């Protein structure tokens, strides 16, 4: 389309246009919003894990200074329905092909009959300040009849278990099975078998900005504006409109600058509906900014899966059969249904050739904070299983773990590779390109080479020091549907306006898409005006989750631009009195190919496109110069990476230090290398946090023990090493730009790479690490038990 001799912007590490306002302190986050006569909300949250609400007395709270309104769940239930139960619809292709049973407990905006987790809100106070609202919230008197709590998903499935959602009569709210080949038969026939349990524990996104919602009602137009720190403005708008009985055209949802999301802001929460409702009811803007204590007990947690696997393999370490039965502890509600759980199933096979595979999964309700996707969304759990299995096979056969992987890996010449099971969009999984063995080599080289490490490890062992190397490989389906939209419009000024429902939280989308549009239209990035995360700018949108926005929005922009270019050329041809086929885009103009002086600026074409007298359009061409295109991806496109970690373990204290860490990564065509690296490193450090530090802990009564950032520990700069990166590029065949998603990938492999590295470091003690996070105390215990095992071996005694 555009003249080829220009240096493309795609592929350049352009500096970000977002930076200026953020560095000056002029970013605007939802907490910064000040509106005239604004009121502040505070929620009253359950101190109990599971209880019937006998009574809620709001009298003292209502009389407190500065209070405008107090509301309990019982009163609210008369006014508003529950959150609609299908936040993510499952495509019919998937529903007909996959054996499934799904129940979806609906969450009331405020708990009325029962509280089902510590932190569930059952009343709300609105007052002149957050300080006053918290004072009043402390005066709400509630009487509870405690019920026994379900805190373990296996216990939750026992016949005698307390039931979280009595209307179902069970805590088993979802069950799925997927199979390929004959796993049982292949397991029976396999020369070797192993059986293990793995637990990938409960942790979460914890962005530095908590959630927040501001609602404002305009009585003149009967319209609501919602500002929410969300990743899904169109979902919020749709649910608010439905819940409050308003036309979507009268509800606008905007996400301002969002301080990190990583998935936890990726669905509609009760507060997204309740705050706008309160604003409309009170006729004054209402603001709710979640504080950190609340965040830990009501913003969704994630992961939390227990896997029981049986693996059959041969003497060369090749996997013959893979059977996984697992449980997901989804907490009290399940907003994204089977999303993450099915991701786990779809990603268990990973970059390997496994012909006989079966997975059965159950989602169990418990009295904990609800479970929703967080960066990786089910894939880290899969990686923990498969990558630990690789190392366990290696240990059994006394092979190098890297060699076991090589023998199982799908080779580049086998691409495109049909996995034999479906993705959650209902399409057959086809790995669309990539070189997994090469990535493995690159990652190992980037940490200094395997042979060199083994020499160093032996020397260190002689000195009483324990070094270990661990690998984590994964494949990742990215750029999922159902769709994303783009409006592309050329202004009379010559600027190109692009609007989309994508919702950034720090990824640098304004920069990336200005690079893409600049290349498509042969303009400068500064001439591209971008509107994101605003339902007023484009009628339909999906939002930013699941590593999808670069893929889906670039494709939507491409297709909208294709159509718009045809129209632009038709009008320009009319102005220049030539044929469309003679034209090209060059430097903000439409010009005749080979005739430098004969061109018309895009802005002039836009003016000519206007309706009315003396327009410049040829007959049959409608007025206006914009196109909206909703791109529906054929299916996901497949990124992958290999992580390698070298650790040193202090067997005295159990302390773990990551000495070196490398990622060899492929996300297809790269739009902005600097931003890609930032995403990979950021994700990797979050993954390291999940592997070593971050953990939600509950006691047997369902009390949350990790209610502050002193207890829920996140990695700091001195906990993580510098991370080396290596890149491969296998362009995607599924979208015009050839890009693949990468936002989540970094977080997938670190927990298992570290578990493998620690196990390797403690190989003399025959220690296994199949549960995350890896804690120093476990290391000390493993060393002690290993010493016992070794002593018994020396003595010829059964341990």
């Amino acid at each position, binding site marked *: 389309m555009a003249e080829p001799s220009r240096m493309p912007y795609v592929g350049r590490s352009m500096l970000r246009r977002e930076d200026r306002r953020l560095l000056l302190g002029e970013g605007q986050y939802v907490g910064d919003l000040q509106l005239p006569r604004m009121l502040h909300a505070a929620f009253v949250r359950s101190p109990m894990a599971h209880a019937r609400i006998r009574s809620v007395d709001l009298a003292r709270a209502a009389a407190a200074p500065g209070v405008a309104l107090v509301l309990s769940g019982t009163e609210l239930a008369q006014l508003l329905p529950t959150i609609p139960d299908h936040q993510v619809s499952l495509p019919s292709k998937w529903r007909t092909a996959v054996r499934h049973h799904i129940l979806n407990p609906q969450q009331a905006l405020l708990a009325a009959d029962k509280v089902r987790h510590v932190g569930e809100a059952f009343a709300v106070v609105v007052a002149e300040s957050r300080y006053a609202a918290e*004072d009043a919230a402390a005066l709400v008197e509630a009487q509870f009849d405690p019920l026994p709590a379900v805190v373990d998903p296996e216990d939750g499935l026992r016949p005698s278990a307390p039931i979280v959602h009595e209307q179902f009569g069970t805590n088993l709210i979802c069950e799925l099975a997927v199979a390929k080949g004959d796993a049982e038969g292949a397991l029976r026939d396999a020369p070797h078998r192993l059986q293990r349990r793995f637990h990938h524990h409960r942790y979460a996104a914890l962005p530095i900005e908590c959630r927040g919602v501001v609602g404002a009602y305009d009585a003149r137009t009967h319209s609501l504006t919602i500002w929410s720190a969300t990743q899904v403005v169109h979902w919020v708008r749709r649910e608010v409109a439905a819940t409050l009985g308003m036309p979507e055209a009268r509800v606008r949802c905007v996400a301002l600058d969002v301080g990190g999301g990583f998935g936890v802001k990726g669905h509609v929460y009760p507060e997204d509906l309740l705050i706008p409702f309160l604003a409309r009811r009170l006729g004054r803007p209402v603001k709710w900014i979640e504080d950190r*204590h609340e965040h830990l007990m009501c913003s969704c947690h994630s992961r939390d899966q227990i896997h029981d696997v049986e693996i059959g393999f041969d003497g060369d370490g090749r996997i013959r059969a893979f059977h996984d039965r697992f449980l997901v502890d989804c907490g009290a509600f399940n907003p994204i249904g089977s999303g993450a759980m099915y991701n786990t199933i779809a990603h268990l096979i990973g970059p390997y050739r496994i012909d006989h595979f079966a997975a059965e999964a159950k989602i169990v309700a418990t009295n904990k904070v609800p479970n929703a996707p967080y960066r990786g969304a089910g894939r880290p759990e899969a990686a923990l299983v498969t990558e630990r299995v690789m190392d366990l096979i290696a240990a059994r056969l006394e092979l190098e773990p890297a060699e076991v992987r090589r023998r199982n890996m799908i080779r580049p010449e086998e691409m495109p590779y049909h996995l034999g099971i479906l993705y959650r969009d209902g399409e057959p999984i086809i790995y669309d390109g990539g070189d997994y063995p090469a990535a493995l080599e690159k990652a190992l080289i980037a940490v200094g080479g395997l042979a060199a490490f083994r020499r160093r490890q032996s020397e260190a062992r002689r000195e009483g020091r324990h070094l270990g190397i661990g690998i984590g490989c994964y494949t990742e389906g990215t750029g999922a549907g159902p769709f994303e939209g783009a409006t592309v419009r050329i202004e009379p000024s010559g600027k190109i306006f692009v609007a989309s429902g994508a919702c950034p939280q720090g990824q640098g989308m304004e920069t990336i898409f200005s690079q893409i549009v600049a290349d498509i239209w042969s303009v400068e990035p500064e001439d591209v005006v971008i509107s994101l995360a605003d339902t007023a700018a484009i009628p339909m949108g999906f939002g930013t989750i699941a590593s999808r926005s670069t893929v889906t929005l670039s494709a939507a922009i491409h297709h909208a631009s294709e159509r718009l270019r045809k129209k632009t050329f038709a009008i320009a041809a009319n102005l220049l009195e030539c044929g469309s086929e003679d034209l090209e885009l060059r430097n903000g103009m439409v010009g005749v190919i080979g005739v430098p002086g004969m061109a018309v600026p895009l802005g002039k074409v836009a003016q000519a496109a206007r309706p009315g007298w003396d327009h410049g359009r040829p007959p049959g061409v409608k007025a206006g110069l914009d196109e909206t295109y909703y791109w529906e991806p054929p299916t996901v496109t497949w990124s992958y990476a290999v992580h390698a970690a070298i650790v040193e373990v202090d067997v005295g204290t159990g302390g773990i230090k990551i000495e070196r860490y490398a990622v060899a990564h492929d996300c297809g065509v790269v739009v902005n290398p600097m931003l890609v690296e930032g995403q990979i490193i950021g994700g990797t450090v979050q993954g390291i946090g999940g592997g070593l530090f971050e953990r939600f802990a509950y006691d047997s009564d369902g009390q949350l023990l990790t209610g502050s950032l002193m207890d829920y520990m996140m990695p700091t700069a001195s906990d993580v090493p510098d991370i080396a990166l290596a890149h491969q590029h296998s362009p995607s065949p599924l979208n015009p730009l050839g890009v693949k998603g990468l936002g989540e990938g970094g977080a997938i492999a670190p927990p298992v790479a570290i578990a493998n590295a620690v196990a390797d470091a403690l190989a003399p003690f025959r220690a296994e690490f199949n549960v995350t996070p890896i804690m120093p*105390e476990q290391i000390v215990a493993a060393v002690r038990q290993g010493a016992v095992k070794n002593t018994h071996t020396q003595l010829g005694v059964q341990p």
Partner: protein
Amino acid sequence: MKPAIFEYHAPTTIDAAIGLLARYQGEARLLAGGQSLLPMMNFRLVSPAAIIDLNRIPDLAYIRNENGTVRLGAMTRQRTVEFSPIVAKYLPLLVEAIKFVAHLPIRSRGTIGGSIAHADPAAELPMVLQALEGEVVARGPAGERLIKATDLFQGLLTTSLAPDEMIVEVRLAAIPAHAGCAVEEFARRRGDFAIAAVAAVVERAGERCIKARLATAGIGSTSVRLTAAEAILERDGLGDTVIEEAAAKAAEMVSPLSDQQASVEYRRHLTRVLTERALRRARSIH
């Protein structure tokens, strides 16, 4: 997470502060650095009726060396301690320990008196007071008294200070130039409270250990002296086997807490490991 309402006072003399403490009969809290108090108030774990802000009282922050005793005003900022030439010269153990205290911005506000009075079991400064056999000057309505470290820390977040008393000065004897000292701390991340820490000061004369002092943080409900372990060293010297024996004794002596970070057993194990490491390092410093 906003604090509840309180009456606010900013006295300009110590006597006025003490008078206010007496008036509120235990319902008021002193505000020194606020780095422990404000988080608790934001969580509404404590909601005092009144805050007595000590930050407007002049002359409560100083560091002086007087005849071999370093005297630090209670309101001396940890950051000031960290960069003080007097502390560097006479109290190297304190310099080493203070680098474990949280992070620079916390040390900008946190005070030495505040940390000691708060008596968090995992805090490093009470451990230093114990290891150096320091004392605090406490002032109340009846006047001033000296409280030795061993008499000050009574239990979890509890000192022997009366409800109407406040610390005005911390006194630490200068460490002899020939002594070796070391702090060994195990925490999950840099700057965290100690899961376990041991501070060691040893003075040797040839093969003999003429004085050994060992104190803990993070292990039990208060910082304690490991006196039985000290006795072993003072009796048998600083050889490898003696150090191992002393470390084993230390592990036996302590009453570890169990919490989310660590079990009793693990803390006991760390006591042994860290005591050994601290002693090995301390004895090699000359």
